[in-house]
């Protein structure tokens, strides 16, 4: 790899954390055939919840943080708990103490305490064409597909290294040719609500690490958030296109691709495949965290249907501040709104054995990370059925 003079200096004379960061980035660059490092506009780091970082990661992070400072704007993923509510929610003190150490280490290196998997909704919103180093697969796919920014699916460690070096190796989705469509899908069914999650799960299972191109739909930004999160969890997807709906669809080169038809049976089969439980003792809303608008919508639906199982709503601190009244209405009916954490990294296993959710990404991670059986279903249908 070719390194500029200041990059060579950082590699030689930087702090231990800077030298290690440069070694991580140049090693990845060599492995993936990058010729150079490119400056990034922001970094977003995963491996913040105790569940995903673990004790080994915490040990690394504390040593690393002693000599690290971020060079670019850096936001961080959700923690394992809303620390303001930990005692009330029965979360063990040892968990809270370790989680506080993780948060302190990220603060020490200068990362913003956003604790959100939707950085693009809490102030770190990339511009078209900007290069980024983002981890958190749902945010990566949103930044690439919906905003037209450019980032690979970084892991926690490589995003951290990029934050400290202010650079990332130029390969993969930073290169225009790799953003072109590899698979096309013709959607022949009406799309709304959680059906976007089903579509994401279904297509993600087909394309692997390809770039899907979807025809026959119109989507809101919120729809694409749920679609992308499910897509990126079911496959190693970092980019997609919606014909007429995402900024790079004209450059996707999809004319040469014949489309695979998506029918109602495909969506129903997907729902059934991920539904492993029947009677939920909790309803989990998040993964990704809800926006302020979604929080208001949920408050209206909960008041309308009065569901029996407790509803756990996961959102960002920013969205709760914006829709504080909605959060109060939800909690007034005995449900709970948590910030700084999210559905799959929170200790749902302390509170439930079967969780119902409309989130496709949630349906994938709740069994493995939280030991849950899952009921995957439309939000309003869930609230009505279990009222």
């Amino acid at each position, binding site marked *: 790899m070719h390194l500029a003079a200041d990059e060579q200096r950082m590699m030689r004379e930087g702090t231990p954390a800077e030298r290690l960061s440069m070694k991580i980035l140049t*090693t990845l660059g060599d492995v993936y055939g990058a010729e150079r490092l490119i400056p990034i506009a922001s970094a977003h780091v995963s*491996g913040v919840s105790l569940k995903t970082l673990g004790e080994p990661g915490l040990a690394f992070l504390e040593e690393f943080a002693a000599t690290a400072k971020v060079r670019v704007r850096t936001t961080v993923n959700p923690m394992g708990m809303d620390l303001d509510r930990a005692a009330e929610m029965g979360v063990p003190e040892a968990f809270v103490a370790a989680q506080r150490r993780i948060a302190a280490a990220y603060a020490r290196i200068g990362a913003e305490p956003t604790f959100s998997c939707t950085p693009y909704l809490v102030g770190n919103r990339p511009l078209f064409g900007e290069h980024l180093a983002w981890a958190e697969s749902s945010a990566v796919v949103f930044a690439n597909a919906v905003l037209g920014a450019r980032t690979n699916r970084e*892991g926690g460690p490589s995003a951290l290294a990029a934050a400290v070096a202010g650079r990332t190796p130029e390969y993969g989705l930073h290169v225009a040719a790799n953003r072109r469509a590899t698979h096309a899908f013709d959607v022949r069914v009406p799309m709304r609500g959680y059906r976007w999650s089903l579509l994401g799960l279904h297509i993600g299972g087909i394309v692997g690490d390809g770039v899907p191109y979807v025809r026959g739909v119109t989507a809101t930004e919120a729809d694409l958030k749920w679609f992308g999160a499910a897509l990126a969890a079911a496959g190693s997807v970092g980019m997609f296109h919606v014909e007429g709906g995402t900024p790079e669809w004209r450059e996707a080169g999809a004319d040469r691709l014949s489309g695979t038809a998506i029918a109602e049976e495909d969506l129903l089969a997907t729902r059934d495949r991920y539904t492993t439980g029947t009677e939920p003792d909790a309803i989990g809303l998040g993964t990704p965290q809800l926006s302020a608008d979604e929080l208001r919508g949920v408050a209206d639906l909960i008041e309308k249907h009065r569901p029996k199982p407790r509803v756990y709503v996961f959102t960002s601190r920013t969205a709760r501040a914006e829709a504080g009244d909605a959060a109060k209405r939800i909690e007034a009916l005995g449900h709970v709104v948590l910030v700084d954490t999210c559905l799959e990294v929170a200790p749902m296993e302390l509170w439930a054995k079967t969780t119902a959710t409309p989130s496709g990404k949630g349906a994938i991670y709740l069994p493995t990370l939280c030991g849950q059986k899952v009921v995957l279903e439309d939000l309003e249908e869930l609230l009505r059925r279990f009222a």
Partner: protein
Amino acid sequence: MRFAGRRVVGGRADGTVLAAEKPLSLLGGVDAATGAVLDPESPIRGERVGGRILAVPHGKGSTVGSYVLYALRKHGVAPAAILAAKAETILAVGAVISDVPMVDRIPVDALRTGDRVAVDADAGVAEAPDLVEKHVVTAFLEREGRVLVVRRSEKVGSFRGKWSGISGFLEGPDPEAHARREVEEETGITDVALLAAGPLVHGRGDDTVYAIHPFRFAAPRGDVRLDCENVEYRWVAPHEMAALDAVPKLEAAYRAILPGR
């Protein structure tokens, strides 16, 4: 023999191989304090990685798995080196932060647990003093969608009684010319047309690593006339190859030269 790969993280190490056989998930798959393999899907479950040359196709699972290698180093139970078929982010970053020498582009399925190996990651090579490399050509003759396989006689030096393509130890500088010669000697068929020549595939038998040069040829009409090296032949559909009692990597060598790879 010497395995030539690519340096991922520099350094040198001597040791014996722990062959993972399948992609290994570090997070949840390896105990960070003891180095014991926990992954229930791994054939090496219960083995310890500490001080050994870990040979693994590639990593899988969560990207924070890299931190497990760092913890293994802190606990003094890191692998001495990593050999991989294909480096990816999890293993490469893990090797960097734990300072474990790593080489990729190594045909790890030719390695077995217990093989002695000296890794020189700076040069991107791994020397296995007890193993011998032999180059062979294997020709797959095709006719009407079926592939010719032959069963080796009791007169040949290795893999007696096993099903094989038309094969022989490589002689001379031109593998394709040698493959054509083998076809003529072993089947009596001449004038075959080359369909594809494949990348090297490595197979293992005892202390020998076979570097297989695979070829696909279209066979014209005409009877197959076996010589003394084989006792039986069949034209099989490609999907039937996996079920044969065959020489190492027969099906893999065929798949390696199919189009669309």
